[in-house]
């Protein structure tokens, strides 16, 4: 990751509107304000992929309402020559396509920004410190699109053309991105390309550029791919050999299962039309997870994907899975709080509820991907771990990672064979004579299991919740229960050594550390650069990738004076989990930086809070 020069961007933002001589190259953000249901996704995707095609690091975020049509939606694209992919709070270029919000949208721009909008709207009256480019969208659309019913969609491509001209996009990259977007529909591609050109030509003829923003070709995206976290997770699940998939639709997790179905249909149907997988749309999340555990019990690799409300419903089964030691993989694509309101906004706020989901003494394994590549890799790891450990494994992602497009190094073909865990066959039993389902034979507290149908009279055992001894016989004896609980606890110690270790960036020069997980990583990376550049402060950084916490985390906290825990929730959930795990001498070192307004965390918020708490200014 390159170091950042944020001050440059800020200067540019406050530069005079008419002073286009101060060029801002490859370091700004574009926001498209639309109405949901207006079909702007294709246009936005073409914009993102055109910039990517020009070799410039880029990220895109869809801020959308929980609604099918008619409410405001914003799509933000950030290009950054430094490779920063976190959200940037300031909008440099606004494309105001939503008349309802246009006034508010333009009023929220920083001075020196750019606004592109429908001619008739006369937004210029609100800001004379913003570079305005009014466009007669409807007129231009009508000219290229005789079919009235398609105009609403095609109109979006006009702004692609306008912005391409204003920012000096490489038009071969735009056309390539557009043709790829409509690869299966030649006619649609031609129509949309005509619209892009109409926008481009209009801008070329009508505007004199009076803003500083331009794109220039780079070579920073070569060999990279663009994918969303949910597709990456789905790919990982397919690679892990998932066979039973269940789900109950819920944003932002539905696309995990939907994309997985597409992959499975493509790659896992035999020549005779028979499938090596089953997908069930369950009646609710209780059933979804019940099916997962039933399938895991029978020996199949099984998964479901959900979000917070579904996690709540899965609570009872999660506990059973823990006690009865059943494998299964549950993807949680986190979103904000319960019920109606902000279900389409991002958060990292399910951590505490998953860690101890259910009643009784339970705790669960969580994998915490911090990139689309990790969505893929941890999906594969989750299936191995679930069977190795015989317990439900949660892969905890979020809306920002799951539903947005991210650049990534291509994923690697998995070299590691599948780990199916400790399963005894009929032959094993013939040799052993018998087995104790819940006996710790190897000292790692992980017992052996048999699968239903194993052809040996001693293979069967009785699966139930809390009341079982080492032989899986019913018991309510205090010592049996306590033995079970202690072994499960020891098993959790084994888990620590098997889950993905944290990533540590140690400068060796700092007594101050930062800890984060998941999508907070992008903001922390940028914030550390800001702290160094702007304040001369070096920080060390550890990114947690799993719960239970690996020993490196203790060492990291022990070796620093103060450690800031950065996370996207109100109650400092990661910090709370760390408190339960760390010795008292380390707990006092922990400080909290939180971001919880439903939008992805951005670097400046981390930097400002850090500086404040450190008393730097």
């Amino acid at each position: 990751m390159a170091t950042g020069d944020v001050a440059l961007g800020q200067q540019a933002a406050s530069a005079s509107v008419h002073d286009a001589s101060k060029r801002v190259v490859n370091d700004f953000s574009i926001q498209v304000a639309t109405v949901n249901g207006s079909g702007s996704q294709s246009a936005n995707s073409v914009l993102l992929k055109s910039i990517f095609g020009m070799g410039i690091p880029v990220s895109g975020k869809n801020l959308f309402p929980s609604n099918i049509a008619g409410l405001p939606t914003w799509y933000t694209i950030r290009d950054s020559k430094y490779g920063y992919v976190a959200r940037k709070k300031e909008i440099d270029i606004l494309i105001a396509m939503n008349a309802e919000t246009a006034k508010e949208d333009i009023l929220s721009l920083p001075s020196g920004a750019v606004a592109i909008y429908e001619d008739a709207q006369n937004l210029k009256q609100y800001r004379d410190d913003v570079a305005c480019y009014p466009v007669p969208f409807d007129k231009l659309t009508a000219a290229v699109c005789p079919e009235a019913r398609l105009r609403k969609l095609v109109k979006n491509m006009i702004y692609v053309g306008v912005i391409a001209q204003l920012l000096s996009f490489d038009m071969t990259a735009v056309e390539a991105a557009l043709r790829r977007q409509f690869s299966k529909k030649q006619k649609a591609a031609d129509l949309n390309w005509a619209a892009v050109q109409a926008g481009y030509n209009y801008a070329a003829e009508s505007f004199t550029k009076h803003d500083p923003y331009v794109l220039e070709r780079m070579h920073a995206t070569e060999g990279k791919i663009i994918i969303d976290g949910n597709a990456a997770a789905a790919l990982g699940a397919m690679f892990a050999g998932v066979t039973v998939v269940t789900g109950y639709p819920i944003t932002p997790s539905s696309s995990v299962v939907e994309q997985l179905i597409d992959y499975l249909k493509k790659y896992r149907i035999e020549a005779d039309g028979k499938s090596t997988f089953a997908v069930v749309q369950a009646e609710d999340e209780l059933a979804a997870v019940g099916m997962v555990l039933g399938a895991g019990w029978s020996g199949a690799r099984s998964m479901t994907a959900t979000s917070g409300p579904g996690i709540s419903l899965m609570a009872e089964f999660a506990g059973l899975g823990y006690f009865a030691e059943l494998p299964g993989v549950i993807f949680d694509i986190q979103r904000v709080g319960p019920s109606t309101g902000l279900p389409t906004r991002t958060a990292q706020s399910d951590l505490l509820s998953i860690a101890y989901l259910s009643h009784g003494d339970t705790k669960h394994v969580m994998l915490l991907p911090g990139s689309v590549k990790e969505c893929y890799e941890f999906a594969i790891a989750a299936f191995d771990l679930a069977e190795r450990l015989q317990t439900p494994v949660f892969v905890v992602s979020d809306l920002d990672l799951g539903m947005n497009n991210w650049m990534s190094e291509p994923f690697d073909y998995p070299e590691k064979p599948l780990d199916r865990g400790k399963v005894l066959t009929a032959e094993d039993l013939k040799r052993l004579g018998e087995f104790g389902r819940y006996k710790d034979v190897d000292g790692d507290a992980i017992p052996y299991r048999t699968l239903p149908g194993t052809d040996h009279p001693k293979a069967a055992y009785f699966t139930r919740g809390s009341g079982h001894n080492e032989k899986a016989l019913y018991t309510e004896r205090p010592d049996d229960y306590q033995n079970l609980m202690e072994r499960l606890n020891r098993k959790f110690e084994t888990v620590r050594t098997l889950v993905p270790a944290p990533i540590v960036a140690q400068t060796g020069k700092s007594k101050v550390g930062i800890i984060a997980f998941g999508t907070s990583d992008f903001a922390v990376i940028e914030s550390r650069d800001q702290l160094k550049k702007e304040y001369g402060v070096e920080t060390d950084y550890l990114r947690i990738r799993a719960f239970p916490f690996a020993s490196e985390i203790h060492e990291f906290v022990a070796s620093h004076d103060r450690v800031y825990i950065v996370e996207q929730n109100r109650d400092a959930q990661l910090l709370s989990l760390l408190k339960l795990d760390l010795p008292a001498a380390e707990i006092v070192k922990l400080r909290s930086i939180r971001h919880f307004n439903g939008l992805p965390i951005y670097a400046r918020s981390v930097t400002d809070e850090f500086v404040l708490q450190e008393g730097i200014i």
Partner: protein
Amino acid sequence: MATTTATPTPAPKVNRLGLPILDYRGGKTTLCAGCGHNAISERIIDALYEMGVQPERVMKLSGIGCSSKSPAYFLSRAHSFNSVHGRMPSVATGALLGNKTMTALGVSGDGDTASIGMGQFVHLMRRNLPLIYIIEDNGVYGLTKGQFSATADIGSKLKTGVINDLPAIDTCSLAIQLGATFVGRSFSGDKKQLLAMLKAALAHKGTVMLDVISPCVTFNDHEGSTKSYAYVKEHDVVLHTADYIAGGREIVVDYEPGSVHDVELDDGSHVLLRKLDVDYDPTDALGALRIIHETADRGEFVTGLLYVDTQDRDLCERERLIPTPLAHLDEESLRISREDWEKLMQ
């Protein structure tokens, strides 16, 4: 070893697999003596033994309740899963998708099914999962000490004198409406009928829903209860006598022509339903619903094979699953090739 005694003990009776009935038994029951659930366990043992089902090829699934404990009391040589209250159908669905070659027996109670488990129950019926789903129906929550369940009839009285004033949920009508393909009602006290129905159930390929009235001697076997032994015996309207004829065996019909309904099951076996008072066609769903309602209105229970459809595809067929159980697929059949992978990554 002792030397041989004068009278050699006769070889134990065995079934077609050469297994004695002992191999179908389970742990000693901890349910109350006389509990209907125990009688049902006995019939399950008989049916599996007589049908010659390999014990290891069975999986037992249950929810929570006295009834749901009962899988511990039969067929110890089969894997068993005592899950959570009302959610056995989902566990069974997963388990069967994982291994569709198993014979799956689900045991539930009326509380487990008709209250907390209603959501999963109705969806199970729709999916036609190849599962034998038995409701051990006593009209109360036995394990939590006798509260009314949702199958309690209007006017039925608890020991405490409380009278149920809510309409009963009829699980058989529901199952028929929702597309279950084998629906029957029986009584734990009717050995012959229950055994024949269980055997037929084992030969059916989709979901079997058996509601077996199974009196709770501790909380619901008194005067005033409509689920007591005495009441049920008195008000049992037996539709037909059922005889199960294994596949391949010649059917010798010595009944009057027209008096027998012959249902051919998936494995080529037959149930012969000998008509009693009523003329009954178990392939007529509307007729089934009518007789259930008519008898219920009179305060009676109709028992027998109420509805059967041997044509519908089961869930595994609809999912077009390969013959090998999904649980047995190895890495080679699960992982895509490197070439496909490279294309995918472009």
